């Protein structure tokens, strides 16, 4: 009997909690509807395409390739990123660079974003600081697989 009353009390407390959430949130939604600014919001939801959450400084987003002062890619085609990449999504083809200080450059630098797992190992491995993942672009989507093969032209932007 005492146990049954305890269960009943727990049930009523549960309904009370959800009802309280409902009423409090409804109150704040109503306040906002009438244009009254409150510190607390009715919902924790961020209405995504209209409002965006600020990304953390270390957030790994879409890759970009950095350039030297003269506009050429910094990449020296050392293949370290290709080696470290766990998804094997980077393809680099080397070419000769006329500058004797540089010697090698990337003729082709493709990242297959359909395979990339955004681990950031390529950024860690790069000795030349040629690749970074700090563009802040997180809505990478396309209607075909081919559109997700990012080459030098897209990465150098």
């Amino acid at each position, binding site marked *: 009997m005492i146990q049954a009353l305890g269960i009943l009390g727990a049930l009523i407390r549960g309904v009370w909690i*959800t*009802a309280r959430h409902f009423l409090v949130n*409804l109150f704040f939604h109503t306040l906002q509807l009438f244009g009254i600014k409150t510190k607390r919001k009715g*919902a924790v939801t961020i209405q995504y395409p209209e409002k965006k959450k600020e990304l953390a400084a270390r957030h790994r987003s879409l890759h970009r390739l950095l350039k030297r002062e003269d506009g050429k890619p910094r990449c020296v085609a050392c293949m370290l990123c290709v080696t470290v990449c766990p998804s094997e999504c980077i393809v680099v083809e080397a070419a000769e660079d006329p500058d004797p200080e540089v010697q090698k450059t990337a003729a082709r630098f493709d990242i297959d974003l359909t395979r990339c797992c955004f681990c950031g190992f390529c950024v860690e491995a790069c000795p030349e600081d040629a690749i970074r993942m700090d563009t802040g672009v997180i809505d990478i989507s396309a209607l075909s697989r081919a559109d997700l093969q990012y080459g030098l032209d897209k990465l150098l932007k």
Partner: protein
Amino acid sequence: MSPFLLVLIKVVVALAWFMILTLYLTWAERKESALMQDRVGANRASIFGLRFFGLFQPIADAIKMFFKEDFVPPFANRFLHTLAPFLSFFFVAVNVAAVPFGPTLAAAGRPLVLQILDIDAGLIFVLALLSLGIYGVLLSGWASNNRFTLLGSVRGAAQLISYEAALALSLVGLILVFPSLRLSDIVAYQGGTLLGFLPRWGVFLQPLGFVVFFIAVFAETKRVPFDLPEGESEIIGFFAEYGGLKWGLFMFTDFMEILIVSCLVSTLFFGGWQVPWLGDAGVHFPWGADWHWPAWLIAAARILAFQIKVFFFCWLQILIRWTYPRLRYDRLMELGWKILIPLSLLNIVGTAVLVSL
């Protein structure tokens, strides 16, 4: 106006009320559950960029379901598979005929009953049709010829049998207190006050009966604490082989059941269209003061009171549905047979003793 035309108009108006409210109950459920969980809920469906808190969402859902493929699995019994959703829809929708929406109005010198069918066994009619709704569940599970749907419908049948008994027994006490089976009479008996201040509603005369009835009727709606026939997370349920509009009909039936249950609870236990302290001449306060109201105002207040009660119970049912987890199957049976039925029998005995004194 011929009586036939009058009944036809009543049927159309009541069904329109019923269907539109049911349609928007889906919206209400999504919004209420969202608010309870600190979310926003459906708010994207728009017409010309106007969103109106997602009020167009049910229409968008309906359009989506209309254009889906009407699929019958090749191993299913085609006729029964098609019949089942319509059966369960019909047995719930027809209940709206017995709901007393308001007091008898005097329109153009003739009494206008705000009820489609004022039958003298209205309570039995409603109970019978509510329990016939199980045929939709059983047929859909059987005709789909799938183990999981059959399991769902067998569970549904077992659950409904065990709660049907408690449901009917819990109302016996009510019939002892308000000696009538006619729903309009039951509402009329609930006018006036108890001890001078308490409205003479069924819930104050039959508190135990109300609790048992509410739990049992909640089990009838097959919603979450008692959603064994569906059991989304384990067996998908009796409508697993349905898609498009037929599946939509099952969902629609679920929401119609919420509305019918709200109508029943407010009619039987919360005075139907009765407003506390409001008599035929105006408000009579418990401390003796009288406040005269014109007849049209009283009628409007009473019709509005019924709507408010129905909305409140819809809200309460959605609240309960989004609060509690599903009962285990044996616990469900235990609650039905070992707790609710003895409680309702106790209620009958207690009420009979008190009434005979």
